[in-house]
């Protein structure tokens, strides 16, 4: 028995070591561009990662099916970091040793912990819908790319939509219900700055993460009789917020969230009951968009899809496609600038900075990345849940960018001053 157990342990150890080897072998192949998609599948961002990652991988498969870019295949290493820093850093270092040029951690804490590393290592990091909002300032964070409207911009868009709808926000009341984490508190400076400018009344309600119990919050929101409610959370916090709002009889068409709201959330809340709720779209959702159609034809139909077919075209899937399309446009540009490489972080960096008026066949608003603006213009639109899908109710627009950029500059300059 003693010996058996020891043998078993030894066997397990050998198997584990064996698994470490092949990754080193793969290093030898050339004509590849390596991305590291280490994301949180298990802990905090479970609600988004699976679909987001599926979109990313399907789009990469699509491009690879079409022969890659510049004769190179895209190799995406997908792994789980579970929001745990040692694991994230290990997979980062491992992938870097293999020549990885881009990492997308899709996690605010991990992105923050990697900032100093990627800046030093000259590896491009995508922080779409996560990470530091001030990373939009490309002059301070040359290797960090949000590539999407950050939370400050999203809040700016929302407030502007409220203003458009009501004509004037003077004397109106906005309730901000948010998860009590840095992510949840992030829009506060913008809300306060815009309050001073537009003259609305602001009331904030923090709830403890992850927000599975908000029963004491919403009676207060109801009593505050708000004109608009913005709820800012993720995963279970979002569905609970909506359910409690419904239970408290708050009008759905006066409620809005950030980009973090999806069909599956609506399934949990109840598709009919949630009718009317608003969210922000950074890209076209659903299956109509051309890239999604192409994926359905070339990747999903032959059975090469990375996940269940019914997830194709969902909200977070679309985000994954959108971000990957932008990244690969960067790769394309990089080949235009330097066709012979060598493929490296700075090489891709130049490409990403050259993205100009890219729309991904109409899937996203025209996006231009410059050395100063890594956000890509800050355009988005508002859409409304109609019981079956999110339908856009505005055009692409951007708003309040002056306030947002003042805030960005404030934090990025502080980082530049003390962080280095």
């Amino acid at each position, binding site marked *: 028995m003693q010996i058996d157990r020891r043998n078993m342990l030894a066997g397990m150890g050998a198997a584990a070591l064996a698994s470490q080897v092949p990754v080193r072998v793969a290093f030898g192949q050339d004509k590849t561009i390596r991305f590291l998609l280490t994301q949180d599948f298990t802990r905090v961002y479970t609600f988004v990662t699976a679909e987001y990652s599926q979109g990313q991988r399907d789009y990469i498969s699509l491009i690879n099916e079409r022969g890659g870019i510049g004769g190179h295949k895209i190799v995406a290493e997908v792994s789980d970091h579970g929001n745990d820093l040692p694991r994230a850093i290990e997979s980062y270092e491992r992938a870097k040793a293999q020549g990885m040029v881009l990492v997308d951690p899709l996690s605010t804490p991990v992105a923050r912990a990697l900032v100093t590393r990627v800046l030093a290592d000259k590896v491009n990091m995508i922080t779409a819908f996560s990470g530091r909002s001030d990373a939009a300032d490309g002059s301070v964070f040359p290797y960090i790319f949000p590539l999407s409207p950050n939370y400050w911009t999203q809040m700016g868009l929302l407030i502007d939509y409220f203003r458009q709808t009501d004509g004037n926000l003077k004397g109106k009341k906005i309730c901000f219900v948010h998860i*009590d984490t840095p992510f949840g508190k992030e829009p506060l400076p913008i809300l306060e700055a815009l309050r001073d400018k537009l003259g609305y009344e602001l009331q904030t309600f923090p709830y403890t993460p992850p927000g*599975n119990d908000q029963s004491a919050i919403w009676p207060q929101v109801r009593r505050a009789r708000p004109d608009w409610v913005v709820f800012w959370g993720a*995963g279970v916090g979002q569905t609970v917020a909506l*359910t409690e709002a419904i239970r408290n009889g708050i009008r759905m068409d006066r409620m809005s969230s950030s980009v973090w709201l999806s069909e599956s959330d609506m399934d949990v809340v109840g598709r009919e009951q949630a009718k009317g709720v608003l969210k922000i779209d950074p890209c076209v959702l659903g299956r109509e968009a051309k890239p999604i159609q192409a994926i359905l034809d070339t990747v999903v139909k032959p059975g090469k899809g990375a996940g269940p077919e019914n997830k194709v075209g969902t909200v977070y899937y679309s985000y994954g496609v959108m971000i990957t399309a932008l990244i690969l446009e960067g790769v394309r540009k990089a080949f235009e600038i330097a066709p012979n490489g060598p493929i490296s972080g700075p090489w891709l960096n130049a490409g990403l900075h050259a993205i100009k008026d890219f729309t991904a066949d109409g899937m996203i608003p025209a996006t231009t990345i410059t050395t100063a603006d890594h956000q890509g213009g800050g355009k988005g639109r508002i859409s409304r849940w109609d019981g079956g899908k999110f339908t856009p109710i505005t055009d692409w627009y951007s708003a309040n960018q002056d306030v947002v950029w003042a805030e960005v500059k404030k934090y990025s300059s502080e980082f530049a001053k003390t962080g280095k």
Partner: protein
Amino acid sequence: MDWLLLAELGINGIFVGLMYGLVALGIVLIYKTSGLANLAQGALAMTGAYAAWAISVPLGLPIWLAIPLALVAMFCFGAITERLALRRMIGQPVIMAIMLTLGIEIMLRGLLPGFAGAAVKRLDIGIPVTPLFVGDLLLNRATLIGGTVSFAMILLSLLLFNSRLGVVMRAVSDDQTASWAVGIRVERAIAISWGLAAASATVAGVIWGATQGVDWSLSLLLIKALAIAILGGLDSIPGVLIAGVIVGVAESVATGILDPLVGGGTRDIVASVIILLTLLLKPHGLFGREHIERI
């Protein structure tokens, strides 16, 4: 001060507290027989909710059938867990057994979302969502029903402890060796207490799953349940009722009064502060028995 709001929060707190109390009930049941705190109780509630969901949605059985089936399955699961894992820890330091339950908690948190999918699942047990007004007071139907069911369950377990089985379990909780000597099957009693704990966790999981959706975050009920169990006294079932209401109201009111002052979500801290204060001021809780150590 908005008294109406306070009243609303207070009522809400009572019912939510009872719902927490149902999770705490399992901790007390297990402590009463085997003298250890089950840190997997939150995960058991999560497992129960997943079980009810799995029977009702993928298998397509009606919910009124799914819940009893889940209860039976979870009772067996609890008893088997005790048989296969906890029983082997007899004679080990208590911290080892506690860590074992923590290990089970982590494992369950991996197993269920791993096999059933990590996304939040809807568990509809037919509670209407339309608001219910009593005068100007809004009552939350989900918590109202959940709290009432929990209250009934806790009362039921009190009755159980006066039955024949209850007498056996009380004897075991009093003195394991002595019960063993008079022919009580101590192991069986402990296994039953685990089964009952898992079953009550299932009811709690279903109720909570119906109000918030089913996902891993149900396992976070643990900390509130611990606060209630410790405040009430780890071996007292009436303590669960009273402490449940206290913790629920304290949390609810803290959210209304403290949050604006601190500018943060104080809800979770309330449970922690209650645990700490109880242990420092009255370690055996409001109704717990004090053990005298013999030298």
